[in-house]
């Protein structure tokens, strides 16, 4: 079912509440990053590009690689917002017996490429998957989400060069550019330079959007899908979006009381 943008915005709002709610129960989750990438995940799942009710391994479909695997709670929250997970299950995330582990694992639901916890590796796997789908003659696309911090890993550039060289138009890359990484602001940790320019130099087309404007993200996806060159969407975002004390900081943790308070403020 295709959803209109107004309902996409409703979904984002609901999912953002769920991300914050989970933070009240799971001190091990990466709250800030899940909040920055949320609209991107909504633009992919909320429009039917990706589906929650697809068995892993099924053919003739699109694939999702969340290379910044620590933001997996954005996927859990959206799944719950769309009715594929219960809130009860969300509360269990990060527990030893829960399917909803803090990084995508082999038993994690809704994940095509698990084990993307180690940064940089999901990019290569997405490129391999896209090469493989093209070799099989399958029409499916691979949607790859990476982060600006992740781009520090040299492996990402090794594989982006391959994507450009083999002109992988079935790979759609979204960079969740939230300007913050573990040790702080990227400007202080390690300057990224002209991120768009780095991709353009390899031969990518680059579309830059406000990553919190789900309409803009969807429009950029459409553009990428119709391009004859591989496209990178740079989604400018705010880490921790919606939780004022952690917005645009490297902070991850909030108390359960704060989590419930901010969840209420969202929508």
């Amino acid at each position: 079912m295709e959803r209109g943008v107004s309902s996409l915005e409703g979904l984002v709002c609901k999912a953002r509440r769920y991300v914050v709610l989970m933070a009240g129960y799971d001190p091990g989750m990466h709250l800030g990053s899940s909040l920055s990438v949320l609209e991107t995940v909504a633009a992919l799942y909320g429009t039917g590009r990706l589906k929650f009710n697809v068995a892993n391994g099924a053919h003739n479909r699109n694939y999702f690689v969340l290379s910044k695997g620590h933001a997996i709670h954005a996927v859990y929250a959206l799944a719950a917002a769309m009715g594929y997970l219960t809130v009860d299950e969300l509360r269990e995330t990060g527990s030893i017996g829960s399917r909803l582990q803090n990084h995508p694992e082999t038993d994690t639901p809704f994940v095509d490429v698990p084990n993307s916890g180690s940064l940089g590796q999901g990019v290569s796997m997405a490129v391999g998957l896209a090469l493989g789908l093209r070799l099989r003659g399958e029409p499916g696309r691979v949607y790859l989400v990476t982060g600006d911090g992740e781009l520090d890993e040299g492996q990402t550039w090794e594989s982006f060069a391959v994507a450009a060289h083999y002109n992988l138009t079935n790979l759609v890359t979204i960079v969740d550019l939230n300007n913050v990484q573990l040790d702080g602001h990227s400007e202080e940790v390690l300057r990224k330079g002209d991120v768009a320019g780095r991709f353009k130099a390899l031969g990518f087309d680059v579309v830059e959007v406000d990553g919190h404007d789900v309409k803009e993200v969807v429009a950029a996806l459409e553009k990428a899908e119709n391009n004859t060159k591989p496209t990178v969407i740079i989604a400018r975002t705010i880490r921790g979006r919606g939780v004022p004390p952690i917005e645009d900081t490297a902070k991850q943790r909030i108390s359960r009381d704060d989590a419930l308070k901010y969840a209420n403020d969202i929508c």
Partner: protein
Amino acid sequence: MLDLESLTPREALGRALADLGDLRRDVVVLVADTGETTRARLFAERHPDRFFNVGIAEQSLVGIAAGLALAGFMPYALTFAAFMTRAWEQARNSVDRLALPVRLVGTHAGFADAYDGPSHQALEDIALFRVLPNFTVLVPADSCEVYRAVTASATVKGPVYIRVGRDFHIPATCGLYDRFEVGRAYVAAEGRDVAIFTTGITLSFALEAAQLLRDRGISAAVVHFPTVKPLDYAAVEKYAASTGAVLAVEEHMVHGGFGSAVAEYLAQTRPTKMAIMGLKSYGRTAKSPQELYQYFGLTPENIAARAEELIKLR
């Protein structure tokens, strides 16, 4: 009929892959600017659509191979063994944790690349891949065994590491057995007094050592393990029991490799007098692998001497 003995190990590798590509449409081959040096070119010539060069980028090589496996292919990724280990964490997180059918082929292993010196001489790769729970580790001795091991690797469900040399080999397995079975050891010589366990090229050194020992009235068994993992525990146990003295010889560091695998098993099941011969330091640039085997003491004479000592110390 293909004369495997006349091929170099890397030619046997390229031929095996090209032939495998005829049999299986799901086989794809990736290289890191190593299409010529690994002889993957032989596959590329026959199956150009299933050959990918990712440039000098080993981490990307292994990760892209994992992605191709997720898309339903059986990727063989080839580069120098010394540089394959650069992507060890990718082998762990992108391949082994998912138990994907990715085959990593490390060529120029051990002292095979004498010219390029220690930076290019992998002496730790067996240890590094052996520690990963889902990996199978194959260490063929000569060109015949390279061809057979690569062919047999297609039957393995999970990931496989295959250790291959370059041009130097001493034919020893062509007539030793008919069929290569993953996980099986092959008895190259029967003996009572001491068992010499080999993997890779050390098989030929051990066979010569056994001859030297025979001249001194010592009966040495030579048991060859082209599969280091899963190790043929029954063969280990049988020859440990029948001889009471086990000497493991490998073209690899003595820590963590094939000898360690044997020792780990015996220490926990049937403590046996044992010695491990191999390397304890990095290699050197030299004119040939043979020169390096001499320089670092991996010779039939030294193996015979060590076996004799092991028996006397019992």
